[in-house]
């Protein structure tokens, strides 16, 4: 293993110390337990947006804390969900009195830990909602699996909901927006190489020089299938068509019912893309793929969406939700209306995403 680290046990701590040193104007890192809040403290009267997940996906989530995006982020060990005490402390530190929205990627660990955290905060009288993001079309059904994983859409949703919070949306309205955006988004990922977590020191899967994994998540896990590597045009076409032709997707998600005071399972059905839709297109690097290659992906993706009669109104290209040094990419398309585009364009000022101010 070749890595720029001191000792595997100290990677998270030293990364956070570095972030604090670099971005003291934007964020404040708490070390026991680990969580990151905005430097200015809680924002009074605004819904606090909190997310979290394993480390190794940087800049997500810590790099998205700041004006116009998240209020707090909880980093776990590399690729391991953070724990309820972190999330609970983050909720208390970030709550500006208007409640807390936890944006949770759909992985069993993340979902259960955020549920326990929400229960703790609710018991203390903090208004909380958990919205689960599940946009990965590589996972086909929800009946025989833990359901679609939360991947690229998370970045777009954190940006747009962050802007909504700045605009003064209340907890119910931000939650609804978050849910709708999730239902409007679909993603697909692929890998050319695996990656090495510092704790393990060896690759998470073996893959030949002429092979690729299709339908990967973001934790260095193998994908849905392995194939011989193809050209960027062929790979991009397969992924984009996979997203655009994905049919209706139905599953039950748990949400907190504020009236009943308990978790309820609600069934949601996502509708497929259709001709005339406006979308935000996000081409993401898994960490090891250079931006030059991402533009190769974007080129073909835009041709395919054009053929389907889908209009890309905004885009994001770069490494934003990564898997350490893995080579590969993901594509996310999210249907948006004018209001959502306006929220996308609103100013954002975080370590990982900055525009408009």
């Amino acid at each position, binding site marked *: 293993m070749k890595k720029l680290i001191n000792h595997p046990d100290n990677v998270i701590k030293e990364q956070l110390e570095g972030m604090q040193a670099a971005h003291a104007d934007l964020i404040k890192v708490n070390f026991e337990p680990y969580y990151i809040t905005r430097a200015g403290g809680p924002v009074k009267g605004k819904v606090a947006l909190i997310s979290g997940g394993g480390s190794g996906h940087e800049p997500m989530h810590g790099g998205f804390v700041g004006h116009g995006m998240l209020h707090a982020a909880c980093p776990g060990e590399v690729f391991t969900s953070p724990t309820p005490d972190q999330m609970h402390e983050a909720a208390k530190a970030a709550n500006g009195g208007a409640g807390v929205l936890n944006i949770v990627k759909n992985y069993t*660990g993340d979902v259960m830990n955020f549920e326990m955290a929400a229960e703790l905060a609710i018991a203390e009288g903090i208004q909380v909602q958990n919205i689960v993001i599940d946009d990965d079309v590589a996972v086909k059904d929800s009946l025989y699996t833990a359901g679609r994983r939360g991947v690229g859409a998370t970045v777009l949703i954190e940006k747009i909901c962050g802007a909504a919070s700045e605009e003064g949306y209340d907890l119910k309205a931000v939650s609804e927006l978050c849910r709708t955006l999730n239902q409007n988004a679909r993603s697909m990922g692929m890998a050319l190489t695996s990656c090495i977590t510092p704790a393990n020191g060896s690759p998470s*899967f073996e893959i030949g020089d002429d092979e690729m994994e299709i339908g990967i998540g973001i934790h260095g896990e193998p994908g849905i299938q392995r194939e011989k590597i193809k050209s960027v045009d062929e790979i991009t076409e397969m992924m984009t068509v996979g997203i655009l032709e994905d049919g209706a997707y139905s599953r039950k998600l748990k949400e907190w019912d504020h009236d009943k005071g308990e978790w309820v399972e609600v069934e949601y059905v996502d509708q497929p893309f259709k001709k005339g839709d406006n979308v935000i297109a996000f081409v993401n690097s898994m960490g090891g793929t250079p931006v030059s290659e991402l533009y190769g992906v974007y080129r073909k993706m835009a041709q395919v969406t054009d053929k389907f009669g889908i209009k890309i109104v905004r885009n994001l290209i770069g490494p934003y939700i990564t898997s350490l040094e893995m080579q590969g990419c993901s594509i996310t398309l999210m249907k948006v209306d004018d209001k959502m585009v306006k929220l996308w364009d609103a100013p954002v000022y975080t370590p990982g995403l900055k525009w408009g101010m």
Partner: protein
Amino acid sequence: MLTKEQVITWLTLCHEVLEENKTWLTQLDTAIGDADHGNNMNRGFKKVYAQLDAIKDKDIGAIFKATAMTLISTVGGASGPLYGTFFLQAGNKLAGKEELTDNDVAIMLRAGLDGVVMRGKAQAGDKTMVDVLIPVTESVEQDINAGTPLAEALAKAVEVAEQGVKDTIPLVAKKGRASYLGERSRGHQDPGATSSRLIIEALFNASR
């Protein structure tokens, strides 16, 4: 019967076996997960072990609850809330106990299993830790009801657990991360079932 010293021994042995088997558990999780199960369990029980001295004089229910809180706040992933809930529910059921009767041990397993199922919603055959915890709990309940001495019931539970682990190999995972692999999860042993087997074996060794 299980004395409080034996309960402490159990938790100590959990720490030892999970440390010994850390790399193996992580390897199993590399095949069908995200290569962290051994690290997660080791991190959690290391902390449990470090805190044993401070909690060893509490009642057994309180010891389990403190163990639960430590696991919940240090393990993370899916196994943190699941094993945390196991010990939390066991602790709730055994509040105030200074020692455990044979029947209490069966009650502990049942409460723990119910907690895991309540939190994770897994059923038998989903290729998870409950594929060990269900047959183990049923076997111990049956044996204790029939008057089998605890150590003997737990010796059998270890065999049942080992069988439960083996039985996960041909299964296609329906819960947790491994479920994303679909058919590709077949032919691999479930890491969480394996750690459950190690924890049951530690219980047997503590009961002798």
